[in-house]
């Protein structure tokens, strides 16, 4: 349920809204080039990649098992190139799953861990060094670095998920009547100095899908695409987007399919 907000927040939100609706088509490109240049290549996400890899090979849960038997769609234990095929249908669960949902499935079935505890805190709070899910997703994305984005769309359920995702993308709701499209349907838009990618276009979607998970400078954490969408929901004053929910999977399917053909370069570096 949306939280109540104080006067200051409403004011800021109104300003933000006004800015976004009234924003001229001035690209923010180039403003941060010097900043990125000085930053260089050293991305703290590299630690999280290592942490994810370690977790994959760490025996956990009542079954004291690693995740090596986890099938991410390319066969048991195959991690290289698996991330780029998500979201996808899995026969064993008879549903379309994103990476996070599939990891949870493997944690509960292979490791015997309790669903509640595994999903209780999927995303870090600031100051944490990251959750298991975040680390695993980061490592898996890195295992697809350089690969072509190619979410499976062969199964009817996968195609239905795309259609559902598209519907949700354009669905206006919440106290400000926002949809994803409000911010992400046009090119060369921005809020303050943050570029707003056009996620309905291949280029915009490919850049977005290919650069998450990303180390988020403002938080000192690597965040997944699932988290990013959840934060959009928060900014739209929508109900909380649950990890592994149909909504989350549908929206990711929509973006990943629009991004198909692009190249994975995650983990990226974001504000």
């Amino acid at each position: 349920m949306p939280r109540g907000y104080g006067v200051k927040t409403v004011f800021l939100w109104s300003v933000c809204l006004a800015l976004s609706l009234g924003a001229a088509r001035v690209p923010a490109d180039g403003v941060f080039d010097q900043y990125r240049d000085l930053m260089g290549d050293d991305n703290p996400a590299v630690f999280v990649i290592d942490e994810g890899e370690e977790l994959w090979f760490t025996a956990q849960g009542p079954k004291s098992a690693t995740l090596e038997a986890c099938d991410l769609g390319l066969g048991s234990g195959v991690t290289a190139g698996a991330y780029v095929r998500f979201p996808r249908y899995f026969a064993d669960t008879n549903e379309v799953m994103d990476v996070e949902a599939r990891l949870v499935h493997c944690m509960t079935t292979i490791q015997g861990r309790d669903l509640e505890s595994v999903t209780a805190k999927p995303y870090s709070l600031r100051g944490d060094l990251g959750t298991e899910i975040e680390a695993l997703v980061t490592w898996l994305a890195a295992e697809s670095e350089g690969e072509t984005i190619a979410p499976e769309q062969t199964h009817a359920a996968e195609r239905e998920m795309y259609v559902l995702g598209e519907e949700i993308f354009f669905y206006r709701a919440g106290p400000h009547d926002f949809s994803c499209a409000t911010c992400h349907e046009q090119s060369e838009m921005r809020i303050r100095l943050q570029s707003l990618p056009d996620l309905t276009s291949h280029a915009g979607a490919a850049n977005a899908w290919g650069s998450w998970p990303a180390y988020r400078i403002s938080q000192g954490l690597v965040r997944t695409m699932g988290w990013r969408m959840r934060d959009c929901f928060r900014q739209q004053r929508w109900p909380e987007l649950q990890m592994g929910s149909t909504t989350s999977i549908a929206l990711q399917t929509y973006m990943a399919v629009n991004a198909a053909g692009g190249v994975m370069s995650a983990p990226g570096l974001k504000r």
Partner: protein
Amino acid sequence: MAGRIKIRAQKKGDITEVKALMRHPMETGMRKDEAGEAIPAHFITEVAVFHGDQTVMQGHWGAAVSANPFLGVRFEGGEPGDTVRVTWEDNQGGTGEGQTTIR
């Protein structure tokens, strides 16, 4: 996990360039958690870079150095195969260490 350091050391002409990335929250002590409690300060206070047994850089840090800190230094000499080490200590008595060879 805590304590890790990723180091790259490269010979460039007459100098060796070292770039190190360290895993550390660099908590200032000024942030509050979800419950409103101040999160204790936890940051690297001393950092050092060694080429063999020579100290090539020694630094004192405050909490204003960014989380997961980065340090780039350059020193004269060094040959591919030489060892470069980076060490740190933090205000809570923690330490970190890492090494690499010059390429």
